């Protein structure tokens, strides 16, 4: 299974920290998993200019291909101006429109306030659906107050992240089964 976590912010540390925590709890359940973290803060991606995704610079193409070819993608996002940050939107814009076809996706949000709880529902999920993702409906919403320095202090966060990991693992298994059944029916 090809697993990619995207840390969608180029600002701060909390989203990346949350994604790293998800990796930790995932590996507790599935020690053999190969998980690659794409941290937009470390990449300096260009703005999308409308070209085919294979026509960007080689290292950009390599990054985008990881997402296109993944079985599972988790998007980590902070809340900026009541929405996802521009860096994450640009990342979606760089990808082909059906980049997440057959891809099981999950969401982790870090936010300063609980008032933005529905942000992922209203701003992120429509994008994932448009890109043909299979979205695991429940997401993990982590508040700034759950962090002390670089540490996540609530056990509750780990438990919720573990449930997300478990849901993603089993949804992927189910998705594979469905795909296999469908393809058998096609006869070619």
């Amino acid at each position, binding site marked *: 299974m090809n697993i990619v976590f995207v840390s969608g912010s180029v600002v701060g540390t909390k989203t990346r920290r949350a994604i790293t925590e998800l990796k930790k709890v995932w590996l507790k359940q599935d020690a053999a998993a190969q998980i690659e973290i794409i941290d937009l803060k470390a990449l300096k991606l260009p703005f999308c*200019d*409308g*070209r*085919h*995704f*294979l*026509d960007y610079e080689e290292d950009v193409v390599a990054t985008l*291909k990881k997402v*296109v070819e993944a079985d599972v993608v988790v998007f980590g996002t902070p809340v900026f101006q009541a929405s996802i940050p521009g860096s994450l939107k640009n990342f979606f814009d760089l990808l*082909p429109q*059906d*980049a997440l*076809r057959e891809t099981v996706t999950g969401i982790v949000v870090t936010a300063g306030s609980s008032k933005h709880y529905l942000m992922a529902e209203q701003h992120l999920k429509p994008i994932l659906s448009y890109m043909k993702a299979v979205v695991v409906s429940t997401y993990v919403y982590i508040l700034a107050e759950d962090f002390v320095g670089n540490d996540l202090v609530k056990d509750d966060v780990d438990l919720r992240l573990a449930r997300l990991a478990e849901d993603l693992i089993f949804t992927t298994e189910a998705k594979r089964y469905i795909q296999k059944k*469908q*393809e058998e029916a*096609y*006869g*070619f």
Partner: protein
Amino acid sequence: MNEFRMQPDNGLEFGVYTLGDHLVDPTTGKRISAQQRLQEIVELAKLSDEAGLDFFSVGESHQQGFVTQAHTVVLSHIAAVTSKIKLGSSSTIISTLDPVRVYEDFATLDLLSNHRTEIIAGRASRIGLFELLGYDISDYEALFEEKFELLLKINQEERVNWSGEFRAPLTDAEVLPRAVLPIWRAVGGTSTSAIKAGRQGVPMQLATLGGAVSTFKHVIERYRNSLEEVGLDPLAYPVGTAGFFHVAETTQQAQQEMYPYINEGMKVTNGQGFPKQAFAQGKNKDNVMNIGSVDEVVEKILYQHDAFKHQRYLGQMDFGGVSFKQLMRTIDLIGEHVLPKIRQYTKK
């Protein structure tokens, strides 16, 4: 229609187009040499001519996995070994070429081929050639519109006075040799581009890789409405469609034979395979993909003709490293079984 050398009374024209891709055959894991691929493209054109097909065209792509970058040179060679079949480009990326040279090349080819040559001009779906040939991708749309307009002007006017942004001005310029070429606009499938073709008053060659017939019917209607809006007669302008084509004994066999080529070929050239579900739906009568048994494909093309009232259909049958043996068999089946039926039912 005469202006574009089309005679709809003879029925729907049937042609073959190749993008000139040069890919690994997924069933053998091997790729033939560029030399062999080029020669097989010429041979495919020759067989198409002998089988009585109406049109053969070669595309221009400047990225890895393609071999007909110099598509006019390939077409010139094809012109020399064929006698009746009409020839064209699918497409010529006018955005990054000099319209004067394009006209000179194609007019020459038209004279050499006894007026069998046409241009289908497009914008390119990939942008490698902008860098290769020294153009700025941010001028993508403006380059096409300006150069395509100039090409049309050169085709229509013996002496050209012109100035624009992307080329030195022309003052009373005579572009030779003279030939009045059919020049089509390649449309990728969106209404926006179809409307532009209509407003420009040029024939439209529409790509239809997959999807419902009704979707493309709508695009064609938008094209014809746009012709009317600028005071032109929609019945005077031909429409061509183009998409995947393969015939075999049974529809299942046709799908089995073609899916690996299209899926693997798309992975390499487009970064993603062809969704199996969408390919499976391709066999439905109301889907534009012409892959199936001879009878079903004939029925589909006739159904499309009813909906589109188009004048030309182009099939892409060599994508993704298809073996030449399979291509020979496909051309045989077209000549013996597909063409006679299509002509019988669509001629007036």
